[in-house]
Each structure stands twice: as C-alpha cells, then as structure tokens.
C-alpha cells in the first residue's frame, strides 16, 4: 500500500526541523520496506505544532505534531501511516479548534495542497477567478473588485478597485503591475506563508489585476530575507509559464502577461511603494514625492498599480465567488478577512485568518492562549514597527481599520507582537526611533535628523537628565516628524514612541541606567 505523508516546506516549519523530520521518515520507511510518498506543503500556520506531519487516511488527513526526528521510529511502531494512536496524534488536521474557528478565504489552500502542483491547484478551485474575469471582461472585473470593498493589505488600506480603475483609465503606452512582497514589517509573515504555501493564488491574482488594468508585465519585489519563498515562487512561475497561464496567450486568449521577480537588498524603506519603484529601476530606494500617484506615473514613468501580496491573493476568491460573497465578511468599511499574524511572546503563535471585527483580546487569548512565558501580557504592538503599543485596557478594541484609528493605532499588515510583563517599554520606544534612524532614506530632515535626535532624547530620559524637559522635547520632536515627514516611516515612527509613553509612563520614570537596546 502506498501512503501519502504531508510535511510543510514552509520556512517556519523548516526552522523547527521539518527537513530533518522528512529525512527521518524517508529513512524509516526505506528500512521497513514501506512505500511512501512525501508531499511538501505550505504550513497551515499553527506554529507551536510544527513540524506538523499529516498522513492521508480514508477518514481524512490525520495530524501528528510537533514531531522531532527522534519521534519517527515510535510513530512507525504505532502505525501512524494509517492514523494509529500516539501521544503526538492530534486528530484530523482541518478540524483542530485553531483552524475550525477561522474564516479562510485567502489562505484556504495554504498548508493543504502541494504548492507547486497545478493539478492540485485546479482541483482545489484554482483559476476559477481568472476564468471568470476573462469571461466578464475588464470593466466588470474592475466593478467586482470595487464592489467587494477590498482595501490594500500592505498598510495604507487604500481601496484596491479604485487604484486599479485609476491606472486603467490613465493614458500610457505600457502599464505595470507591481506586487509588493517586501514584507518588511517585523511581526508579519502572511506574505511569506502565502508565497511558500500557495503561490499560484498570487499568480492568479496578478493575472486578474494585469488583465483589468491593461498591463502586460508584472514584477514581484521580494525581500532577500525570504530565499525559501523565492525558490518556491520561481518554480511556480516556471510551472505557470509551461502550462500557458503566463506568456503571450494567457489561457489561450489574446491577453499577454509575464511576471519577473526582483529581489530586495535589506532596506525597510523599499517596502514604501515609490521607493520600491526606484529600487526596481536600479536606484537608491528613496521615496518619491506624491503627486504624481504611481497609478498615473509609476514604474518607468508609466501607470502602475502597486499592491501587497495579500491584496492580490484575495482577488481570485472575489472573482470566483462574487463581490458580495467577500463583502459579507467584516464590519463597517473593513470588508472581507485579514490574515492576522500572532508572534512574539504568545503560546499559540501563527496565522489566524478572520473577518474584521473580532477583538484583540479574542485573538490573544481565544486563539493565542495567552503568553508563551505564562506571565501576564502587558503590551501588544499591532501593525509592524510603525504600529502603536497597546495596553491591556485596549484589548477589547475590535480589529477593524476605523476602530484602530479611533485609539490612535493601526492594523497595518495585521502583525501582532506580544510582550509579557518583563518588557521595558522605554527601551522599545528607543528601538523604534533607532530603527527609523537606521532605515531612513534620508530624503527629508524631520525623519533623517529627527530620529537621531529622538534616540538622544530618549537616552536623556533614561539617564534622568532633566527628564520633564526631555519628555516635552520628545513630544515636540514626534510632532515635527508626524507633520513634516514625506512618508510613513518618519510620519508614523511617533506612533510606537508616543503610545509607549502614553500607555506605559511608569517605564519612563527614574530608574537605574540601562544598556542601550
């Protein structure tokens, strides 16, 4: 009998030993004379269970985890290939509580299918969105995306459909689509998981976008910190080319589209869309003044849509099931789902795709199970390094764009980083300033100089040198950065700094000198 075993190739699963587990399973099977087929999938995103191994059985895919190479012989002894009992047996993977309570639209196939099998992709509903777009035409495709209410998942939450229409309507010989896979925000990994676990969904989303705006070329700007994602993505693009989904006649129509990967080089600011375009053009990643909007004058001066990985990967489901289906998820002006990413000091860290509107507390405790250390959660940073630090008193804030703006915070790319009560918030405020100083593109003074001054001023506070004056100065400085910065790096760095000061003032009080963060 031939047994099929699923083991993730996802970076996080591999970072915990998935490759060694796969090798141990192969070796055991060989020495026992059992024929097995190992399928490397993405991760379902329950990282405390990785490496998670699944076996196909008549009653479904049974999961075992977290598996270490040393467990493998015992798993074979317990007949795990047919779902036999073992302390690591978790039951049917898809029915684990963590997954059952999610609403997986964009991530429906991640962790389930072989990310490089077009056959798997088609069998799991792939390319229905593209077929639909090609069938209904450009104008109706644009309308569908506008009516879905989908907003950009890269941070700024601009309505995706409106951006597309602007580029579509703009005059220009060549139009471009650029996928922003820079995923520079610390605490975020949803782009990576999608790229590694279901790259055809991104390719399909890019095809739909390219078709709708009239672009023949798409770029994926991928951060260099993701070599594993780059390998999977490159292989997926090659497979799509071989099967006629990319090239001169996409799906045997007259629509031509190609995709090129461009690798970043470790500059956070290159996630900002205009710096990203400069980088693709071969320049220093300096932010461009807006206007002109990239949708009117972007890459090589041509109308260009820049969209985040998740924004684009959400589109196939919108086309396949209709705008209404997608819009029915969510609250207020935050429609659809967001793949939240739980990281840092959290017991059950991973990916939770949910409709907007659940509270931070539900995410932290019902999904996350509290801190990993078992100590009280004291602070949570939502939305990457430019996001606010929130205290316990704000954990009941619903996770939607407007509610977060209402408490001077932002959802950004959906990253949630958890700290327990050993955290030093002044040190994190200092880190935010020094990160800004380190990553500033240097174009405008409030950010370039302000962040360096900010670090000095926080050091003065920590060193208790005229603290009240230094705190007043820090607030002034933040004000200048907020008002006078060209982009959100300088403009939003005050958010983590001031939220730390606002919500955790005791950490800025007199105390022994600390080492620099």
């Amino acid at each position, binding site marked *: 009998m031939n047994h099929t075993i699923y083991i993730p190739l996802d970076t996080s699963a591999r970072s915990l030993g998935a490759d060694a587990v796969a090798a141990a399973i192969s070796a055991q099977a060989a020495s026992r004379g059992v024929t097995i087929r190992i399928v490397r999938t993405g991760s379902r995103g329950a990282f405390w269970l990785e490496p998670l191994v699944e076996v196909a059985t008549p009653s479904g895919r049974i999961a075992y985890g977290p598996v270490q190479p040393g467990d493998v012989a015992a798993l074979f002894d317990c007949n795990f290939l047919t779902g036999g009992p073992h302390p690591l047996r978790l039951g049917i993977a898809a029915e684990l509580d963590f997954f059952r309570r999610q609403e997986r639209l964009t991530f429906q196939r991640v962790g389930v299918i072989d990310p490089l099998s077009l056959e798997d992709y088609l069998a799991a509903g792939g390319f229905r969105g593209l077929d639909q777009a090609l069938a209904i035409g450009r104008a109706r495709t644009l309308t569908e995306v506008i009516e879905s209410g989908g907003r950009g998942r890269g941070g700024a939450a601009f309505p995706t459909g409106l951006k597309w229409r602007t580029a579509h309507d703009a005059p220009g010989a060549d139009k471009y689509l650029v996928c922003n896979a820079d995923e520079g925000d610390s605490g975020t990994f949803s782009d990576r998981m999608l790229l590694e676990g279901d790259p055809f969904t991104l390719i399909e989303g890019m095809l739909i976008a390219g078709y709708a705006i009239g672009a023949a070329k798409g770029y994926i700007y991928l951060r260099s910190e993701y070599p594993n994602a780059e390998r999977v993505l490159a292989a997926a693009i090659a497979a799509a080319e071989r099967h006629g989904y990319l090239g001169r006649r996409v799906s045997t129509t007259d629509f031509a589209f190609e995709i090129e990967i461009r690798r970043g*080089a470790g500059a956070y600011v290159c996630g900002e869309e205009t710096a990203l375009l400069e980088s693709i053009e071969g320049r220093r990643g300096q932010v461009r003044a807006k206007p002109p909007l990239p949708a009117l004058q972007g890459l090589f001066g041509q109308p260009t849509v820049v969209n985040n990985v998740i924004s684009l990967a959400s589109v196939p489901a919108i086309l396949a099931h209709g705008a209404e289906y997608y819009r029915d998820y969510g609250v207020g002006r935050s429609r659809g789902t967001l793949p939240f990413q739980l990281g840092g000091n959290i017991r059950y860290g991973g990916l939770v795709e949910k409709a907007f509107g659940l509270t931070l507390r539900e995410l932290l405790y019902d999904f996350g199970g509290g801190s990993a250390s078992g100590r009280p959660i004291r602070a949570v940073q939502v939305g990457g390094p430019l996001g606010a630090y929130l205290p316990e008193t704000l954990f009941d804030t619903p996770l939607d764009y407007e509610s977060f703006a209402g408490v001077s915070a932002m959802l950004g790319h959906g990253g949630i980083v958890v700290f327990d009560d050993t955290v030093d918030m002044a040190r*994190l405020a200092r880190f935010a300033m020094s990160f800004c100083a380190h990553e500033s593109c240097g174009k405008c003074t409030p950010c370039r100089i302000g962040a360096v001054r900010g670090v000095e001023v926080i050091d003065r506070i920590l060193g208790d040198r005229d603290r009240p004056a230094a705190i007043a100065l820090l607030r002034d400085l933040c004000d200048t950065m907020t008002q006078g910065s060209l982009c959100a790096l300088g403009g939003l760095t005050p958010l983590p700094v001031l939220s730390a000061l606002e919500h955790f003032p005791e950490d800025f009080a007199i105390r022994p000198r600390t080492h620099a963060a």
Partner: protein
Amino acid sequence: MTSSSAAVLQDPPRDVAAAAIAREGHRRDALLPVLHALQDRFGHVPAETIPFIAKALNLSRADVHGVVSFYHEFRTAPPGRHIVRLCLAEACQAMGAPALRAHVEQTLGVGMHETTSDGTVTLEPVYCLGNCACAPSVMIDGETHGRVTAERFDALLAEPRGRS
C-alpha cells in the same frame, strides 16, 4: 554561498558581472540583479567590478557606489565563510533576542558587522526573518532557524564551522 578560491580563479568577478549583464540587459534596472549575482557568488560586491558595471549600464561610478552603499545587504568586503544573521526585531526581542545576542557576541568574540579572527563567521543583524511565531530567529548561511536558545545556537554553529 561563498565559493572556494579555485572557483574564484576560474571566474574573475568581471566575468561574473559580464554574464549577469548579458542576462539582465544593458539597462539601469539591471543594476540590482547584477549586484546580487556578484554578492551571491563572492559574498560581496568586488570593488574592481564597479567601473565595469558603470560603463556597461551607462552610469557613473559614483552612481553605482551610491546604490551599493544605500542597501544594507550589499557588502564591499569579503565576509567570513559563514554568515550568521541574528534577528533583532520586536517579536524576537519579546522572546529573548537581546540575551541571545549577548551570548552570540561573547561566544564568537565579535560584534555586529564583524568577522571572527579565524575568518569563519561574520555576524550581522537582521530586522525580521518572517519567523516571528517561532522567535528568536537566526539565519545561518541562508537557512532560518527558530526558537534558538544559547545551547541550540552553539549546536547550530558547530555544524557549519566543523565543515569549513
């Protein structure tokens, strides 16, 4: 990542640059892919390639230098045989990255952006590896490792160091 000295002799940096330019095209936007090709091959962007790249892409040398220096990842000097990139971003801080950093710096006897005196390891900071639910994270020669304790780091490092 880096190559043996024999291979370097066979493929002078200029030839690697020329091949990359031939592949990417004589256009300004080929610059980053060309720099990456060089760094993938030599671990850094060899200085002698810069005038050549500038000429081939019709740029000034200052322009090419400006791009190389802007991006944190491009090195202008050869690194050690192994590259350790320690994540210092928030999620890893929440799980003990500062203590891990102290351990790593002490064990290796170097600070960030430095190379051990025996030339085996270069230590660099990185701000997020997208492994934030398995923090703290370290990348060694392009492979990401999660939940890295001091002991696990020592074991991870023993492996490639033994090989080199």
